[in-house]
């Protein structure tokens, strides 16, 4: 089945099409969820709710070409994860004065670290840092957009991103040093 056939099947409530959609998207969506929520069990709970909601609201999706369905599913998972985080705790703010100067970072270091290790490092970040990092890095939101979404100010968004980067780079360097 291609994405269009899956879309049409899911719109009709066809179980086979729904299963196929799950098979294709669940892994990527769970990865997105774990990046935001840090906990696998929580991410699976949210994933479960997302699929239930998607299958019962599938008329909200408009097919726009191959890949649009996956992109939409990931976006839904991001929003669901943010909703979960928002309900759980208010996003912390970081005073500008507490942020150190940015650390020297080498992009190539990221390439050498296994994916699951990178995921673990991200999950170890505090909720606020991790959320801003994900929105900036993977959703490519601006600080202004992030501030509006999370109900914080732009400077706080920028500060948390810097702090997140610093912590991640530190963990990557420590990991590489251990491997070496």
């Amino acid at each position, binding site marked *: 089945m291609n994405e269009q056939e899956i879309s049409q099947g899911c719109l009709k*409530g*066809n*179980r086979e099409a*729904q*299963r196929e959609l*799950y098979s294709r998207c*669940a*892994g*990527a969506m*769970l*990865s997105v969820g*774990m*990046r935001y929520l840090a906990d*696998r069990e929580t991410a*699976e*709970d*949210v*994933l*479960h*709710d*997302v*699929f*239930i*909601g998607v*299958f*019962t*609201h599938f*008329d*909200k999706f408009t097919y726009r070409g191959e890949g649009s369905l996956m992109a939409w599913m990931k976006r*839904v998972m991001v*929003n*669901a994860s*943010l*909703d*979960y985080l*928002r*309900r759980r705790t*208010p996003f912390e703010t970081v005073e500008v004065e507490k942020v150190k100067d940015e650390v020297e*970072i080498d*992009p*190539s270091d*990221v*390439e050498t*670290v296994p*994916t699951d290790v*990178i*995921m673990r490092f991200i999950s170890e970040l505090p909720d606020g840092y991790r959320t801003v990092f994900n929105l*900036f*890095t*993977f959703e490519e939101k601006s600080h202004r957009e992030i501030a*509006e*979404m*999370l*109900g914080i100010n732009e400077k706080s968004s920028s500060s948390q991103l810097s702090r997140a*980067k610093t912590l991640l780079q530190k963990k990557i360097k420590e990991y590489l040093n251990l491997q070496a």
Partner: protein
Amino acid sequence: MDKHNDKWAESFRRKLDSAEVKPSEELWARIEADLPPVERRRFPVILRRLTVAAASAAAVFALVWSVRPDKETSPAGTPAASGVGAEPALVAGAADVAKEMEEVPAEAVARPQAVTASQLLATTERVAAVSAVEKSAEVAEVQPVAVAEAPVAVADVAVAEQPADTVGAVAGTMTEKVARVREFMAVAPERESRATQTAYTSVRDEDEHTSRWHIALAADSRLGEGTSGSVNGFMPLSYKDAAHEPALTASSLFADDYDLMYIKMNAENIDSHTQTDEVVSFPINYSASVRYMINDRWGVNLGVSYARVTTERRSGSDQNFYVSKAKMHYVGVPVSVSYTFYDSRYLTLYAIAGGSVEKCVSGKQVDSLNIGQESASKENAGFEIDKPWQFALNAGAGVQFNITRRYGLFAEPQLVCDLSDDGSNQTTFKRRDDLSFQLAVGIRVNW
């Protein structure tokens, strides 16, 4: 933006954008178990229900056709369900005739039996009086209403206009009839009253026959419905599947300003006291129905009904809240049978039982968000309002005050049992409680 940082972010994107984590084996089973059952195509369901309704209507009409009364065997003396008052009219006419029957007590005159065959045989005047009544009966074939509503006048005129020299001719004709009556008496004395009442009951039968159809207009309300309530806490805007709303708010599916405002409202209320207030209207059902009287006791009712149900909910804090208003329109077909156990000139008492099928034909829900000075609203919030079929059974009693022989006011208290499953599929409210008490009032016209 710093190019170095861009490359750093790009490296993470390349690393994790296509990353996948395999879900637990049982996750799909959990999802599948919680999915609503696959809806069968609506058309066959509707077709099945229409078939059942058509079969029921056909059965009702077959019943009506099979038990339609024979005029000759119609029991005399039973009160007419229409309460037209044919009996009182004949009582008045018979009372005039019986004035000359010195031996007939007044009470007996009040009923047609008072004019018995033996009394018919007694005097020529009485025979002439019977002829006058029969003549009025012939008149009633053409103008039954006139006979019913002015029986005294007709009888009086008929008697007054009877020329003296034709009495003999009339008496001769009457002799044949009287002889027939005597014959009946010889064969079956116990049938005397019925035989002599033939001259009278034929008139009443004509009246009864023209009052088989009744049209009613009514309004009813489920007593006890239309409640208001408040609970602490915030109630999220629910769409089709309220159970999974916490993970899927509007922001999950849309990206417009309204949805961002909903997210902001929730964020603003994180540490605020929230409350949910709900007001459900008193839905009033309007109906028009037709009743066909199979006989003097049993009747079949068929009608159409309309109801509008509205509800309003406010949820959130004092500063940040939403107001959700929903309005739904129902059209229905009520069907029932009635049994009249008492009928008089002014009062009719009956029992009624049946059912109804209703369909929500139109619905609208408007959700308005308020955050301080900001506000936004959305109609139906992008989802399809459920328009379910509703089924119910009802049983109760009816009391009708007969203003005239044609018009009456009625009240029908009934118990209504809702057969629909409207718990999980409603957007904001239930159509009715599973068991409720209903009072219908209206006007009935005998056609």
